[in-house]
């Protein structure tokens, strides 16, 4: 995080000290580090003369900010209408059980993180799971283990 903190100073330099700067700073920090860490919140708090609690309150309101790092691979499960009908929710639950994490979390070894999405736009292939930029259609619970082994 050492280098992170120095680039944090670079981010903060661009903004005036006013409450309105908070969201742009958060966005820029997330772009830089991939997530909003407690250290980042601490630095922003000192810069904007707000408390960490106020900043977390604002940041956690928006779904665009995440507070845990991303994994090396992102698994996205489609829960759109077509996928839902063909068992998308069951797939998500199976993945949660398999990876031992909840939706929105990241495995302790940082290998995978898991997200749900409303529609990926390829309903003909339902149910669909996306890993990084690869789409896997006609998914089933029994295919999960084999599929995940492809990703290190």
């Amino acid at each position: 995080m050492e280098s992170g903190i120095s680039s944090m100073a670079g981010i903060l330099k661009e903004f005036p000290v006013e409450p309105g700067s908070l969201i742009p700073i958060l966005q820029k920090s997330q772009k830089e580090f991939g997530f909003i860490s407690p250290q980042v919140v601490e630095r922003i708090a000192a810069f904007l003369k707000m408390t960490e609690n106020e900043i977390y309150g604002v940041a956690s309101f928006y779904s665009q900010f995440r507070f845990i790092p991303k994994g090396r691979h992102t698994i996205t499960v489609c829960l759109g209408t077509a996928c839902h009908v063909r068992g998308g929710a069951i797939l998500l639950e199976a993945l949660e059980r398999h990876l031992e994490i909840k939706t929105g979390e990241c495995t302790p070894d940082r290998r995978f993180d898991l997200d749900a999405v409303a529609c990926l736009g390829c309903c003909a292939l339902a149910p669909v799971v996306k890993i990084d930029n690869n789409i896997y259609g006609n998914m089933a619970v029994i295919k999960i283990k084999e599929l995940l082994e492809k990703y290190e």
Partner: protein
Amino acid sequence: MKLSIDNRSAETQGPATILQVASAQGIDIPHLCSHPELAPYGGCRLCIVEVEGMRGFPTACTTPAAEGMVVRTQSKALQETRREILQLILSEHPSACLICAEADECRDFQQTIRKVSFTTGCRGCPRDEECELQKAVRTVGIEEITFPVYFRGMTPETGDPFFDRDYNLCIYCGRCVRICQEHRKSAVISLKKRGRLTTIGPAFSRSHLEADCEFCGACVSACPTGAMAEKNRKWHGSADRHQDSLCPLCSLNCEIQIAIKGNRAIGTLPPGEPGQAGGELCVKGRFCLSEWVNHPWRILLPRMRFPEGTGTVSWMEAAQKAGAMLQNSGKGKTAIYLSPFLTLEEIAAARLFFQRACVSPHFTTSVLDQKLASFFALSRKSVTVKEIEDSDLLISIFLNGNHNYAPLTLAIKRLASRGVPYLQLGWITDPTSRFAELRSMPEPGREDRLLNDIAHALSAGTGKSGEGGRIARMLKAAKAPAIILSADVLNLSSAEAALAAVARIIKRTHARLVTVHPYANMAGLLSLVPMETAGAVLRLIAHGQIDTLYLIGDIPFSSRPAVRSLICQNVFPPTDLLAADLVLPTATFSEISGSYYSPGGGRRHFQEAIPPPGSALPHEQIFARIAQAMGIEDLKFDPEALSRLIPTQARIVLPARDVAAAPAAKRTARRSKKGFMLLQERSPHSYHGVDLGTISPGLAVIAPVDTLIFNPEDTARLGIASGDTIKMKSGQAEKAFPVGVSKTIPPGLTVLRSPVQDLASAANPRPVRFSPAAVKKRKKTSPGKSHV
């Protein structure tokens, strides 16, 4: 302006909301999120009204009243909508008891109580019958809830001291969050996430303790439901009555009200609407006082030491024994320790009594040394916190506002957030630090240097460079600067030099001075009684020149000094090691009427709230009984006669300079890179010689004593963690202390707070060194750790 509400004409001076005007007229508009100390919010939507010429239903709490407005609060459409809104709120709140047909009988006979659980009803809720939601349901009238009921199933949070939180009962009115941010300027809690997943708390999933909460309790007071509950009075139910009083724990003597049920003080609250007003109390005034009053360790009967052990005796026997002890004590051979927390009446009675009962007694109090005398010499000029509210520059000097002096830190926070520049001189991070424009950390051991620089720059002209010159220039430019000086300055080895420098600064700038200290009525002691310094009396005891030692609300010894007889008159028993011959139980602040000198020097009165427990008596009555036993018949201590002895303004007389005292500890100029600076502090959390942490376990958690507290960076570097022990050497002696971690301590410094008793140890009448630098030379902290 004039307006009409429900066909009644209402009038208001100045700007007000419809809700405010209506409440002033006694028209009840149901509301939940509106709070008198907070800005209009319009969250709960219950206070909707109809205003002629306005579209829809505006909320009364956010709509300003205007000339000629015609408002209706009770139309059928409004009631319908309110019922709908309230049902939505109740669908996520345990509400079976609110709509149960047998609710009224159940309150009296509890016939249905087994059928409802905590998760569905009200009877198991700590705020039952005091809940604003219940009140709203009664006013709006709800018979059923047509929405599906949802229970959040969150685990109640009980890990933090002083209050519990069960967010299953929360209605998200945001009053706790807003009172913490707007009113207390602390912002320890926020609304986190959104929608159904909304929670309330500090950042990430930190506890209140980790988030450096001040535990002022404003959020608990502001909560309209049972979501937040004081641990101490959780199951006491509602209070029968409230009695106004004054907090006895520090020099600010805040107004409090004591909540009383039967003959018990079940809690203390800030003035205002009980169960609503957030107020300006600190954790001690809000939570610790009722623990003190109700503690099971309180002495209830007089106790005497016999050759075969201690036993309880009657007041008659105790008074005769005390009288005999005083009579057998020779001229100038009685020493009386008076607590600085006594009321003016108690002090006047003590003086009257001892001057009649013994020949030339010595009066002192354990904290009174030369440094404190110099502090009080300066304090005579102190103004009240209210008087600095028009200042345009604030400088605090060694103020540690953590869990202390809340009205003062609040005033600083408010002024600073209005744009008044605030400078903080000192090492400790406290609630005001976030608002400081400049934080200056003086070099340990040479803390007076910066203050001297400022004083020098003020007289030498504006050319001075450096931090001192900069602050001097700001002081010169300011029209009404204020200097805030805390008794924490007395923990420094250079305290006297620092105080002299502050005096020079004040003289040269005409800045107003506010002093704060933890010795509530020290001004009263110094005004009414000819005091000697503690050092002078300690030397008399050490030289065997004292026969009888009478400790009144002061316990300066941890073991028995060499005296013939020892009487201890207090609320709590002294340690067994003190081997007191006589222990007399006294009433405490809630059980007496009296007065203190306020910070401005005027007299402030308070009334008794409850009777004392057991056979405990007020100090005056104990003196009267002893006087009677001694045959002094005319000492009756009539309250009015006593009151006449007390001047309306404090006239502080300082004790004679203690010339024989050992010289102050030498300073060392430099700090080494390897070692830690040790700042030894006298704990500011004591009352009548008792460490408040022993009475209030929560206080011991948030402000631990006998613990070496480090900055988290230092503990990470040393590889130690909270709970480890560290050995500290001082000459031949060696003692182990547990490690504490706090962000309030700067890196490189470690703070050791000692409870009051140990500091004035009589067996060892050498001066206690508070200087971090001086201690560093003699004591070394060894990083070698050992787990407990």
